[in-house]
């Protein structure tokens, strides 16, 4: 009798725990920002509000592509994740999901993503999503991450695919504006990621990952963050230079950029974990707002 009562509840709890572990494999917090760039690209490409179902399915497809890449990353990096406090509780390291299942799950997510995007949007969006997955796994995780300080610069291209997917889902082609969105994410990634690396450099050193502060020290990293922030500022105004965005975006982007430059400058001139933390957290808000501004400007 007690089994009848407790059994289903226990099974439900266990199922919930399994779902939670697989959800963790996809790194939902990281993906949320990627989806903001996808959605903003869709709204910008549509010059307004795109079809609701198209937005929904593109978000689902985009989530699965990025989530699949992240799951495969858990599989590939399982030997070093245990050496880092930030990652030592990940499902594969903790043993709650076997490496093989993480890999199969990641590949399945990628395949389902491609199918959904091809059916609900178009083949171009599907190809772009799978290419982003391949760049993240093949170029970043397997090749560059453990071999060069430029790992997150070149590998950052993977994170720049979501706006291309969003744009392609609406227009079935990729125009200059879409490539400029790609560039904004690409040139935003180094100052964003190096600020995080300053905070986690001991972790990266323990895992043997050649992040910039680990290999060349904090001073060089802070200087590079400032210089790349200036480059990023120039890239963010290129949509206006190309005649693709208006004054609303230009003025808003200038304000957002001003704060970023001040933070990066203070981080460069004042070695401080606090400024590194501020720069990192602000960079997240910054990217989301820059893309929202684009969508508002295009409406």
């Amino acid at each position: 009798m007690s089994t009848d009562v407790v059994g289903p509840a226990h099974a439900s709890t266990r199922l919930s725990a399994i779902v939670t572990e697989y959800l963790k494999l996809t790194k939902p917090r990281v993906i949320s920002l990627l989806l903001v760039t996808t959605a903003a690209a869709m709204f910008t490409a549509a010059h307004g509000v795109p079809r609701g179902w198209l937005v929904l399915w593109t978000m689902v497809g985009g989530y699965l592509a990025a989530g699949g890449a992240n799951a495969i990353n858990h599989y590939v990096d399982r030997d070093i994740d245990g050496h880092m406090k930030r990652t030592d509780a990940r499902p594969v390291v903790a043993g709650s999901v076997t490496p093989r299942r993480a890999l199969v799950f990641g590949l399945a997510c990628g395949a389902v993503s491609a199918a959904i995007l091809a059916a609900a949007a178009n083949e171009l969006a599907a190809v772009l999503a799978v290419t982003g997955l391949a760049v993240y796994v093949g170029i970043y995780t397997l090749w560059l991450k453990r071999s060069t300080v430029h790992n997150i610069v070149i590998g950052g291209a993977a994170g720049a695919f979501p706006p291309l997917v969003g744009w392609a889902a609406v227009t079935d082609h990729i125009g200059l504006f879409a490539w400029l969105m790609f560039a904004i994410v690409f040139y935003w990634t180094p100052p964003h990621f190096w600020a995080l690396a300053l905070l986690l450099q001991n972790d990266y050193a323990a895992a043997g990952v050649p992040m910039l502060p680990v290999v060349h020290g904090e001073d060089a990293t802070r200087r590079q963050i400032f210089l790349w922030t200036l480059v990023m500022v120039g890239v963010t105004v290129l949509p206006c230079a190309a005649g693709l965005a208006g004054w609303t975006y230009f003025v808003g982007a200038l304000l957002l950029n001003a704060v970023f430059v001040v933070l990066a400058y203070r981080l460069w001139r004042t070695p401080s974990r606090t400024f590194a933390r501020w720069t990192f957290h602000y960079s997240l808000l910054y990217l989301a707002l820059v893309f929202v501004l684009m969508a508002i400007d295009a409406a």
Partner: protein
Amino acid sequence: MSALYDSPLRFVAFVLAVVMIIPAGWLSLRHMLELRPAEDGPRARALEAVWSIAPLVGLIALLVLAGVQ
């Protein structure tokens, strides 16, 4: 669409982009090349140089594309 010189917004944004990208990109590249370990072999040094220069080449291409759009 108006030409670069006919639109104040396009012109201002283009000048700002050039002023921000070229000097900072050059300083960043020079700094990264200075940081390369002397003990690296020629292949490793060449590869590091490629990774350093590639993003700048992309930037120049974007500037040109934005300017001639």
